[in-house]
């Protein structure tokens, strides 16, 4: 294959050929069966790769449909949407390390309010004993026990709220690596009512581990959302820069 043919083939796959050059390539390939076979092989490869990516995205979106169909009707969706972050004197002052990320973590980390089973509400009747117990431990800041309870719940029910509170409890228990692992375990948070709260806590865990690179994209997503956490994310981002 000549140098020129090779260059033309390369440019063809980068979509950089003019109509005249396409004609020239065509002529050259017709006169050179080895080069033509090589070209067709590359053409087939590029088709294979495109088809594969298409299939992957299609499956991803189909999965997303299934997930959102099954999660949208759940009763805690309402609870999660009305949740507002309120202060709990918890993490403040817990961290004595003076590194910037640590300080920011300490300033911003508060356990997410228990929006599922506020203890004083009579609506508790619809909760199972397991759920009540997990949230009771959570409210009592018994995070190690709470995380075990939520883990059991999540295993049994596979519901987002359980995973979410498991993550926050794990962070309460200061196991940030584990918290991130749990967050990543769920491939698509997007269809979940806990999407932005989960991303918020994952970002904080990354910050705690001094991994700003991982935290920033998550915070950006929250910032661009309509969630109540958007403002907090914006503020935190500004402090990180």
């Amino acid at each position, binding site marked *: 294959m000549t140098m020129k043919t090779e260059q033309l083939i*390369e440019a*063809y*796959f*980068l*979509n950089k050929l003019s109509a005249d050059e*396409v004609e020239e*390539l*065509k002529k050259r*390939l017709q006169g050179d069966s080895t080069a*033509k076979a090589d*070209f*067709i*092989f*590359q*053409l*087939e*490869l*590029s*088709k*294979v*790769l*495109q*088809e*594969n*990516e*298409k299939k992957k*995205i*299609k499956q*991803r*979106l*189909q999965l*997303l*449909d299934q997930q*959102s169909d099954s999660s949208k009707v759940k009763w805690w969706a309402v609870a999660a949407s009305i949740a507002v972050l309120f202060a709990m004197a918890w993490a403040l002052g817990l961290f004595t390390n003076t590194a910037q990320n640590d300080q920011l973590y300490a300033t911003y980390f508060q356990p997410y309010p228990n929006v599922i089973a506020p203890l004083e509400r009579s609506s508790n009747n619809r909760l199972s004993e397991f759920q009540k117990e997990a949230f009771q431990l959570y409210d009592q800041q018994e995070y190690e026990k709470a995380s075990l309870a939520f883990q059991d719940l999540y295993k049994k029910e596979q519901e987002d709220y359980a995973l979410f509170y498991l993550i926050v409890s794990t962070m309460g228990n200061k196991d940030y690596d584990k918290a991130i692992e749990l967050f990543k375990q769920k491939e*698509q*948070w*997007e*269809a979940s009512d806990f999407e932005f709260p989960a991303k918020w806590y994952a970002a904080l865990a990354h910050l705690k581990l001094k991994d700003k690179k991982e935290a920033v*994209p998550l915070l*950006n*997503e929250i910032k*661009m959302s309509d969630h109540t956490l958007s403002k907090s994310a914006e503020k935190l981002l500004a402090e990180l820069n």
Partner: protein
Amino acid sequence: MDKDNYYLEQLKNGNQKVLDKIYLTYKKEFLFFAKKYTQDEETIVDVFQDSMIVLYENVRKGKLTSLNSSLKTYLFSIGKYKLYRFNQENQKNTEDWKNEYREEVNDQLFEEEINEERMRKINRAFEQLGKKCKQLLKLFYYRGFDLEEIKNEMNLENKNTVKSQKSRCLSHLRKLTINS
């Protein structure tokens, strides 16, 4: 930076979570919008998913770098075209449609010589390649990165290294394809 451009930037970087976000944000509205063209909800969802794929690919391949309209308008116009095509296909007989389809893909060289069976073999062989080769070939043949861009993306020494690695990966793939 407004939200749509932020989304584009994220898609460009391959952030598929943003794709999910866009999909969920506009799906309902698209279902409503598309009722003008067909009543079959399954078709509409299918078309919307395919439109998302077009959007994603256009961004990934650098064909769409900025928007003249909103992201929603862009996405819906892809969908509208697809629905229009869908209706046409249903009205005409298959022969006509085939001719039309041929015309559209004629700018692809030697399209007619592409062999499905060989593609399946290539697909199987590709899976056996090493990580680096997979990445390099995907960047070139799927993302449309030129050698300079691949050099930067993969931290390679220079363009010649990229070039020689690319041809090594290709010939390895070819061998695997023959044996598969």
